[in-house]
């Protein structure tokens, strides 16, 4: 696959993002795409957003749980780039009008106070370099028809990034048990799922360390001030107009989000 093809596929994703429409999975087109090429397509897709005026605000880690890794047939997470247009901060209301086929995930977000330059980064470095952690919701979205993704499709599609909301409570990771902290998710006042931090690569800090090392190998900067969505600790939740979600992390606190409008699908 040459650079021209990579650019074309990245542009196709960007066009789908702009028009809120979906495209046929790349992996069903007889293309032989490596994971490395999928990340190059992602870079093109993200570059188009940056050219249009957005800036890089952080990273997201995906495919962090065993069931999702088994489903996609991979043994490691993936990552995507968070851009300024993805942060929803208007009273924690998410406007579904801007999304295609959204699903919500409850997570822990890390905010760095120091650069993390991999390789060679451990979970201990992650704790040291973390300013604070917050409970958050990531609303993943896919530009691929019916979420029929293989790992190359979701990586190219910027790890299925949609939008995200950060909670108000900031926690010091030195005062928390990131591995064993419970994650309780309610949908419209009813218990939806429970889990713990360990669901994410054994601990969310392990996922962030993996990210630092992977970015280091790829020469992608990982800077102080960036937000890292460390991976879903809940089941995926389908959402529609009027839905309210609340996640509550043991020892930390809550993040609430409300959904408004209609997604494309």
């Amino acid at each position, binding site marked *: 696959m040459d650079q021209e093809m990579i650019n074309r596929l990245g542009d196709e994703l960007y066009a789908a993002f702009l028009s809120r429409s979906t495209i046929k999975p790349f992996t069903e087109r007889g293309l032989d795409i490596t994971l490395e090429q999928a990340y190059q397509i992602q870079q093109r897709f993200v570059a188009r957003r940056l050219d249009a005026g957005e800036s890089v605000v952080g990273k997201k880690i995906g495919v962090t749980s065993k069931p999702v890794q088994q489903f996609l047939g991979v043994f490691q997470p993936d990552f995507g780039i968070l851009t300024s247009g993805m942060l929803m901060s208007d009273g924690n209301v998410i406007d579904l009008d801007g999304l295609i086929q959204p699903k919500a995930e409850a997570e822990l977000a890390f905010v760095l106070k120091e650069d993390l330059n991999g390789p060679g980064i451990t979970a201990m470095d992650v704790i040291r370099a973390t300013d604070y952690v917050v409970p958050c919701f990531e609303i993943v979205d896919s530009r691929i028809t019916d979420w029929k993704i293989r790992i190359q499709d979701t990586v190219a599609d910027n790890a299925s990034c949609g939008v995200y909301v950060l909670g108000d409570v900031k926690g010091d990771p030195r005062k928390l*048990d990131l*591995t*064993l*902290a*419970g*994650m*309780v998710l309610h949908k419209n006042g009813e*218990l939806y799922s*429970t*889990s*713990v*931090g*360990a*669901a994410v690569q*054994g601990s969310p800090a392990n996922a962030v360390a993996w990210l630092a090392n992977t970015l280091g190998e790829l020469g992608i900067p990982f800077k102080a001030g960036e937000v890292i969505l460390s991976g879903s600790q809940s089941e995926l939740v389908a959402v529609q107009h009027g839905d309210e979600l609340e996640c*509550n*992390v*043991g*020892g930390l606190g809550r993040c609430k989000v409300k959904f408004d409008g209609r997604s494309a699908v």
Partner: protein
Amino acid sequence: MKTTLNREAVIRLCERVEGAQTRAYAIPKLTDEYPSMTMADGYAIQTALRKRFIEQGHKLIGWKAGLTSRAKMKQMGVDQPSIGFLTDKMSRPENSVISTADLVHPRVECEIAFVTRERLVGPGCTAADVLQATDYVLPAIEVIDSRFTGFRFDLESVVADNGSSARFVGGGRPRYVDELDLPTIGAVLEKNGEIVEMGAAAAVMDHPAEAVAMLVNILADMGEELPAGSFVMSGGITAAVAVSPGDHVIARFQELGSISIRFEE
């Protein structure tokens, strides 16, 4: 609650369950022979079993709520919780070896246990009453063992079989309830060094104290109360995991420490 079994049938079924429990063999579920058996019949058989054990010198030390989480109800195909009694003969210390020789098909689950310092009386007992009457909470591993063939049963049969109660281990770190946010306490169950189940205590009826209140109200239906000093297990946070000789199980809890046990023939 309506009963359908006469005294003679209750005694006969009680003896059948007692034989299966003490000599560790599987029997067909009781409803195969008595299809119209009710929950009240199940509790009548359980009560006969409890009185028989106490006559034999076993000491009643508390109760357990069972089938209190969605995960457990789904796993067992039932739609309401149940209770069972606990005696000193079922208790095992932490870091001990539990013999599988006298069990049929043991499974383990992690739970939050309550020790009471005031008596609790239903009906109308609430979670707030339970918290008020609680001396301390601690983590527990319950070893359940349905005596029914293939672990397949209905609620009536499982109640007669004392809610599949077999062994239990209280341990870890005792805590005052007012120092904890119980619903968000995370728990991880590891078997032979691998995480096999995860969850948070909210999985148990949104709050484990709700399960204890429910238990007190079921006791009231049977004309019983929960005396001060009782040990009460509030129900599995996760689905139950099968264990075999040679298995090493650790339950790790946020804020409450851990419990380790081994199984041998």
